[in-house]
């Protein structure tokens, strides 16, 4: 692990990580629940998938490194996830694409389709699986 001096990386305890993992699970479970064939619901599910993915990544980092990112710049969270020895090495990519899809949605709400939301929820769920195994 490379030490970071940024004030946006904060220390956390295993108890904090369990709470964050529970938050991730709640976001993702609700995302799966609302994910029907409607496009309005797809937007809600996509937003929840992003929140769930970030929370799960925080939990993974917290369990492995004892610290997580608290910055608004999520690239720091992705970089920190890259410091973790992961069972699933695709997770930093999944988190980056999840965040990129959220940004791309600013171009047009039509870019968040039911299929896209399902893919985003799958990416978040993969991050949660890693947190569950931590």
């Amino acid at each position, binding site marked *: 692990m490379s030490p970071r001096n940024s004030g946006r990386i904060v220390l956390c305890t295993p108890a904090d990580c369990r709470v964050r993992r529970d938050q991730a699970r709640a976001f993702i479970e609700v995302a799966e629940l609302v994910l029907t064939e409607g496009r309005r619901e797809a937007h809600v599910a996509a937003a929840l998938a992003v929140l769930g993915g970030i929370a799960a990544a925080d939990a993974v980092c917290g369990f492995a490194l004892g610290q997580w990112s608290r910055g608004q710049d999520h690239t720091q969270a992705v970089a920190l996830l890259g410091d973790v020895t992961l069972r699933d090495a*695709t997770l930093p*990519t*999944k988190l*980056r*694409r999840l965040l*990129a*899809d959220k*940004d*791309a949605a600013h*171009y*047009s709400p*039509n*870019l968040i*389709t039911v*299929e*896209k939301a399902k*893919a985003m929820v799958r*990416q978040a769920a993969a991050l949660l699986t890693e947190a569950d195994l931590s």
Partner: protein
Amino acid sequence: MDLSFPLATIAPTLDAGVLHVLAATTSGCTGAEVHRRLGHGSDEGVRKVLARLVGQGIVVVETPARYPLYRLNRSHVAAPHIEALTRVRQDIVDRIRDQVTAWQVLPTHAGLFGSFARGTAHANSDIDVLLVRPETLTEREEDLWLDQVDGLDRAIKAWTGNVAQIIDLTAATLGRMAREGDPLVDSWRAEDIPLHGARLIALLRELR
């Protein structure tokens, strides 16, 4: 990187701007014309820079009529390097195209749009990429696809210092957006620099 003025990467000065203007033309320009095309600096400042560059031999001056005409001296040993720096936009397009065409899971269409495609991008502009992904992907292909897209995202940042904004959608989504009159589709249609796969116009016609 200032994508409209790549010479600024190494020399954010009036001198570099003047060289950029002269590299863009094979004909001679008056000092006033160089100043007009540059769009900033003072007329006097531009003339001082021209005099300095003439002293370096990289700019030649002729006076066929009333006003002197300045021209980039393409015989100068530094000229090819200056010209290469003014052409990095094409290098960026080529690099993106090379990377995308080497992918294992190829897009149905890949293209560039937005300010970079229009040639109006500046230092803080994003480089906008449109990727129409294959309609169905297995779980393994989906992971591979995401890895490819993410690799391109990071490569663009490393090559230019600019952020890539990648729109990754299926043909079905593209077709629906076109049918619903999404203005984003109009900008793709108007600006698209094709990189790989079916032409966007043909694809949109097919999806109508």
